[in-house]
């Protein structure tokens, strides 16, 4: 290597060194999380064990290589030896790695057996992924709800179109926050039954060391037992289409007492919602109220595909502005499409309340200059659903 190249290299390494010592790195995480469960700590220990073994092997092998590169070079007058095989050495460096592999395999096997033991759970929750949200259903509790990204669009969309215009100020939990987190009790074995309504998703919370694919038509099992109450965040880990990067997971772990309080609250809320639904059947909402509720519902559930502008992303996601369904077709067909879905569009009948569907259909028929003037009431949706 020429002198000039060496100077260049030194400069490059100094540059790299300066980069990594900048103060902005204070809270950057470099290593795997230890997590908050016995299993996640076992996984962490296993990770560190393999990392240390690999580092040691690397130091030895690369050390020998560099030693050789420094001392066995022609420019230092090194003469090439003429050995080129040795059965003894070959057997040795086949046998030693096998021994090392066995020392890794033993703890890996025991951790894995533990992870796959789904018996004797205290709480069971069904997790269903769909494009691009999670649905949680508590067994034996009559509690179920969807959990959707709550980071406002203007934070991740590039509002003014320029490269460094990053839209609105991003919050601390940017892209890792949801409207309704999953709530589980601490110090209890919680079993998850994981499935999907459309494509494959993967439910992952690093702090629990739980990552399990959600396969449509099949149910996978996983479990956790968290010892520290708190809020833990994760993301969908399997490419699931356009908004794969926008379906986070938030789990709130509460002490068993707080968890029971939360369960009670939820039961009351569910009952209230059922009453409200019943009441809304006999009352009429004004167009203004419907439009307001419709816009909120549309932004949360419809805008990922059909876009806030109603222009959609054709040809995959059709426009609603000026569309045949929204302005020409009969109202009942529009309601039925939202209730039952079609092709890639999921059925919203089980995701939204009748009132929300009434509102969203009203909104879609009047927003963006669609201006049909149609007003849809909860009772119309009820009638169309044929229940």
């Amino acid at each position, binding site marked *: 290597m020429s002198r000039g190249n060496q100077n260049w290299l030194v400069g490059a390494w100094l540059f790299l060194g300066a980069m990594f010592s900048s103060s902005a790195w204070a809270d950057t995480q470099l290593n795997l999380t230890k997590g908050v469960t016995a299993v996640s700590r076992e*996984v962490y220990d296993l990770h560190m064990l393999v990392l240390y073994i690999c580092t040691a092997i690397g130091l030895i092998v690369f050390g020998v290589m560099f030693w050789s590169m420094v001392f066995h070079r022609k420019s230092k007058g090194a003469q090439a030896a003429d050995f080129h095989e040795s059965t003894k050495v070959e057997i040795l460096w086949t046998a030693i790695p096998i021994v090392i592999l066995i020392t890794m395999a033993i703890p890996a096997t025991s951790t894995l057996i533990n992870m796959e033991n789904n018996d004797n759970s205290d709480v069971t929750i069904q997790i269903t992924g769909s494009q691009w949200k999670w649905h949680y259903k508590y067994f034996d509790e009559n509690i179920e709800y969807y959990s959707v990204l709550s980071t406002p669009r203007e934070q991740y969309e590039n509002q003014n179109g320029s490269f460094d215009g990053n839209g609105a100020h991003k919050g601390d939990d940017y892209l890792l926050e949801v409207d309704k987190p999953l709530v589980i009790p601490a110090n209890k074995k919680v079993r998850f039954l994981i499935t999907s309504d459309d494509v494959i998703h993967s439910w992952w919370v690093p702090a629990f060391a739980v990552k399990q694919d959600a*396969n449509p038509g099949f149910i996978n099992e996983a479990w956790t037992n968290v010892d520290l109450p708190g809020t833990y965040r994760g993301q969908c880990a399997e490419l699931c289409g356009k908004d794969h990067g926008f379906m986070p997971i938030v789990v709130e772990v509460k002490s068993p007492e707080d968890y029971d309080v939360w369960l009670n609250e939820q039961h009351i809320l569910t009952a209230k919602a059922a009453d409200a639904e019943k009441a809304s059947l006999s009352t009429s909402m004004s167009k203004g109220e419907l439009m307001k509720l419709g816009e909120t519902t549309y932004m949360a559930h419809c805008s990922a595909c059909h876009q806030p502008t109603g222009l959609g992303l054709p040809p995959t996601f059709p426009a609603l502005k000026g569309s045949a369904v929204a302005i020409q077709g009969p109202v009942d067909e529009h309601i039925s499409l939202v209730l039952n879905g079609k092709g890639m569009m999921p059925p919203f009948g089980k995701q939204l309340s009748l009132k929300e569907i009434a509102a969203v259909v009203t909104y879609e028929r009047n927003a963006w200059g669609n201006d049909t003037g149609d007003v849809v009431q909860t009772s119309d949706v009820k009638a169309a659903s044929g229940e």
Partner: protein
Amino acid sequence: MTTDTINESLDDAHNDDHHDHKMTGIKRWLYTTNHKDIGTLYLWFSFIMLLTGGALAMVIRVELFQPGLQIVEPDFFNQLTTVHGLIMVFGAIMPAFTGFANWMLPMMIGAPDMALPRMNNWSFWILPFAFAILIGSFFMESGAPNFGWTFYAPLSTTYSNGSTAFFVFAVHIMGISSIMGAINIVVTIMNLRAPGMTYMKMPLFVWTFFITAYLLIAVMPVLAGVVTMLLTDTYFGTSFFDAAGGGDPVMFQHIFWFFGHPEVYIMILPAFGIVSTIIPAFARKKLFGYSSMVYATSSIALLSFIVWAHHMFTTGMPLFGELFFMYCTMLIAVPTGVKVFNWVATMWRGSMTFEVPMLFSIAFVILFTIGGFSGLMLALTPVDFQYHDTYFVVAHFHYVLVTGSLFSIYAGAYFWLPKWTGHMFNETLAKWHFWCSLISVNLLFFPMHFLGLAGMPRRIPDYALQFADFNKWVSIGGFAFGLSQLIFLAVVIKCIKGGEKAPAKPWDGAEGLEWTVASPAPYHTFSTPPKVD
């Protein structure tokens, strides 16, 4: 067929074609059946694909430069990652190795050409059409494929966009091309070796391509099968991967990875062959443990068929399946370790010089081994649950594919450029290429390990704020690495145009029949087979 009869029939067929009169202009390249011309075509094609796939990666890195959606929509981002992967695997790495096979195999075994020259022409010339279809789908209304290069169902069936049929057709053509290329390699090696060259006297380079060709013949039909099932699921109402019709989406992954894992070795075994040729040449010492290298390569090839489900630990496999695939995967570390130890032992007490092919080979050994370490970590099922589908995996396979396969391709290209062009390349410029690539590639891929461990999933167009610092540096490394590859283009063009005249054997430690012919290699070599003893 014996060597003798082949030689006779070749002599008959070539009676009027034996001299250096080749067609001129574009016709020479369209109609050529000459292994050197076809090798050149493959190598140029793969470099163009490398730059194309690289350009897509540049857009990806601009998008990921900082948090927030910057220049592309999420759906287009998915198209970029998908086509980037497909181009690099099927367009850049695999054809580059086929180019090496075409140029070097006949010269290394003392054969006049590949055994099936017309098929050879065809297996190259269908490739540009395959990639024209694939890249052309960017200009369709629905855009290019957006389901990842692994095209998991049902995202690639029920939920795919309008370009799926084109994707399937393109992959079929690539597969046909690969199978034909592989058959040609096997037939050539089995039948056209010079008298006296027994299997265990073949250069290791020849051995690795021989084994790789068998892998290709075994698994490319599986890929063809799985894309066909995908096609019928999407357009003809079958339900192979749809539970509602009695199918299973996880079955897709089993079939895909039964192809996909051997495919990984298809992209690395030839690299082993190239590096095993170059290190002895510049250490001026015979390759340590030739026969153990042959056995290690064969064991890796065989093991590659029983480890596929380690890509699928999170799909909900039974415990027994997870244990089986974990143990088998860990076993691969043994023959791979043997290879690395043999390379180091070859260097040990050699008389080394550090010309550019050697620099790339040494970088290969170190950085490929780092990729091997992360591979071993990924093999352990419990920790794989944490690593799977994160940037840790992205770091892992880019270490083995870029600093592994691609670096070996550069090593080989510099090693044989004097033989191909008849000129020595510009050493200073080539060293710039090496050092710029080495530094930028590590800035590009090493921090990805940290990103993955900290929890950043792969294939996302935007990310949480704690990943921002590393992504910025990764992007800068990416731009630098991309630009550095243009230096290689400059070196090659300069070398073709002129430069110091290369002797028949420009590297004093090099061994093999290819160095016994003049530089540049005459259009026809070894019309009479050499005698090997």
